[in-house]
């Protein structure tokens, strides 16, 4: 069961003690811990099957190639995408950079508009500032309302009046947990698409660990994710791309070298027509792909629908407790919009009046509680609201209401240390 002691025991690190107390790990939005199943899958690959993939006519190369292909298939199927729609990257940041180099650089020209938002992680912000510099396209930023939700009126206004070519938005905010209304956004994009389609990129770094993702139903052209936030190792992630963009070659490879070619002549190279190979230049991190596939299987066994419910329960529980502490100001939405469930997932963030976020997290650490403090790579959002730094507690499959209780109890120590 999610959050149970049995489930926690499947993650070796969670039995560690920190500052002589049991570890309460609430920094999952930064990175999740890894179950034994994932650790063993990686170890087993290296102990039993390691060899470079492709073009080897020996047993280990064949085994490795087969494992690599099967792992890719598992990962793609986890997202209900076709295997050829998955490009393996290091993480969501690299995936978004891939869209910049492999799509935006040659699809955008001076005067075109890229739309992003105030709530983006720097990974989906700085990349577009750089694309704007390179291509002459203009970067326009959609605002947020007082609860840090996306301003849909602003989005519609910009779609209506500007020559938008790309909308790049976060699916679930890493800073506030806000879940963006993808269906509504897509509807607006379709409604305002003129001759050329407007492409839509979703940064799924924080949605992949918490929501069942069906890439085909989602409707985005690009979906970027990081494995390490969904129980897989660091250094592996992916970019899902709609098949039509690959078939029409609207999306180009952006890394070149061995493995991605079909023939190389002194005067000309032909790229591999198969997208599962065309986008892998050089030797990939096979063991991490194996680890990511094991994580996908593990999440499937737990059932992503149940994970979403578990997460929603924890967010509501944490918000209920935090809003009772007078010194704490919760940031982001606390109340649901009418007739909807609360559009917040994965984390709760807050400010402790008169005590800096770093000091709060340091004192929580002394109680064995791991949270994150700072701007969470969302400086535009923090600057807009005038938050110097915020404290974020974020959840995963093993998180429980006991962990939230420990956090609330740990926060009592702030008063003691600061003599408030």
């Amino acid at each position, binding site marked *: 069961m999610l959050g149970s002691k049995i489930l926690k025991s499947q993650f070796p690190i969670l039995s560690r003690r920190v*500052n002589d107390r049991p570890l309460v790990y609430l920094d999952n939005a930064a990175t999740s811990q890894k179950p034994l199943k994932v650790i063993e899958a990686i170890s087993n690959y290296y102990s039993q099957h390691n060899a470079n993939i492709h073009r080897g006519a020996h047993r280990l190369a064949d085994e490795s190639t087969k494992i690599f292909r099967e792992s890719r298939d598992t990962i793609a199927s986890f997202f209900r995408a076709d295997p050829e729609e998955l490009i393996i990257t290091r993480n969501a940041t690299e995936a978004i950079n891939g869209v910049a180099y492999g799509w935006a650089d040659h699809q955008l020209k001076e005067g075109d508009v890229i739309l992003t938002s105030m709530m983006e992680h720097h990974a989906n912000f700085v990349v577009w500032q750089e694309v704007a510099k390179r291509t002459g396209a203009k970067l326009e930023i959609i605002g947020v309302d007082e609860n840090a939700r996306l301003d849909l009126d602003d989005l519609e206004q910009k779609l209506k009046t500007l020559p938008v070519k790309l909308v790049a938005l976060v699916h679930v905010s890493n800073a506030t947990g806000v879940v963006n209304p993808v269906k509504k956004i897509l509807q607006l994009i379709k409604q305002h698409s003129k001759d050329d389609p407007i492409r839509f990129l979703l940064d799924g770094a924080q949605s992949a660990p918490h929501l069942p993702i069906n890439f085909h139903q989602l409707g985005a052209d690009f979906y970027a994710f990081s494995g390490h936030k969904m129980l897989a190792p660091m250094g592996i992630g992916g970019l899902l791309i709609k098949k039509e963009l690959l078939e029409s070659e609207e999306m180009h490879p952006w890394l070149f070298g061995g493995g991605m070619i079909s023939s190389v002549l002194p005067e000309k190279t032909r790229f591999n027509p198969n997208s599962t190979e065309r986008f892998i230049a050089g030797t990939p991190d096979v063991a991490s792909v194996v680890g990511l596939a094991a994580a996908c299987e593990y999440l499937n066994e737990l059932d992503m629908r149940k994970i979403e419910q578990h997460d929603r329960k924890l967010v509501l529980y944490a918000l209920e407790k935090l809003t009772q502490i007078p010194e704490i100001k919760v940031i982001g939405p606390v109340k649901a919009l009418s007739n909807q469930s609360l559009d917040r997932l994965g984390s709760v963030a807050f400010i402790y009046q008169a005590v800096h*976020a*770093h000091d709060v997290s*340091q004192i929580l650490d*002394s109680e064995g509680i791991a949270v994150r*403090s700072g*701007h969470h790579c969302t400086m535009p959002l923090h600057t807009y609201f005038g938050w110097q*730094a915020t404290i974020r507690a974020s959840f995963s499959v093993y998180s429980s209401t006991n962990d939230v209780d420990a956090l609330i109890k740990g926060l009592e120590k702030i008063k003691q*240390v600061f003599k408030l």
Partner: protein
Amino acid sequence: MTNDLYRETIMTEARQPQNYGSLKEASAIRSYINPSCGDSVKVYVKLDQEKKKILDISWEGNGCVISMASMSFLSAKVKGMSLVKINQLAVNDLKQMLGLKEITPSREKCMMMGLMAIRKAIKG
């Protein structure tokens, strides 16, 4: 480590900092942002005519207890100090100044923020 960090002397220094505010005769004013958290500090320095030492210094900023206490102690320490000596100050000197036996990599950045700002200001 937490008890070490939040000792009375450090807490008091952060709450009642020395040399806080602007400096009218400043020869250089520079800000430094801690990239890991976005905290920032602005220092005002007045150098001697030969530009070899700091005659006066003040600062303004917002941050955690460690960054504020460190900046405050440092502002007193560098008054009258030669630029050569200031450029030689390192992590261990600041730890000693704050009376810390150890500091984690993330809090080291907080501790060093003020020194980074001063170095920027004396560079011109």
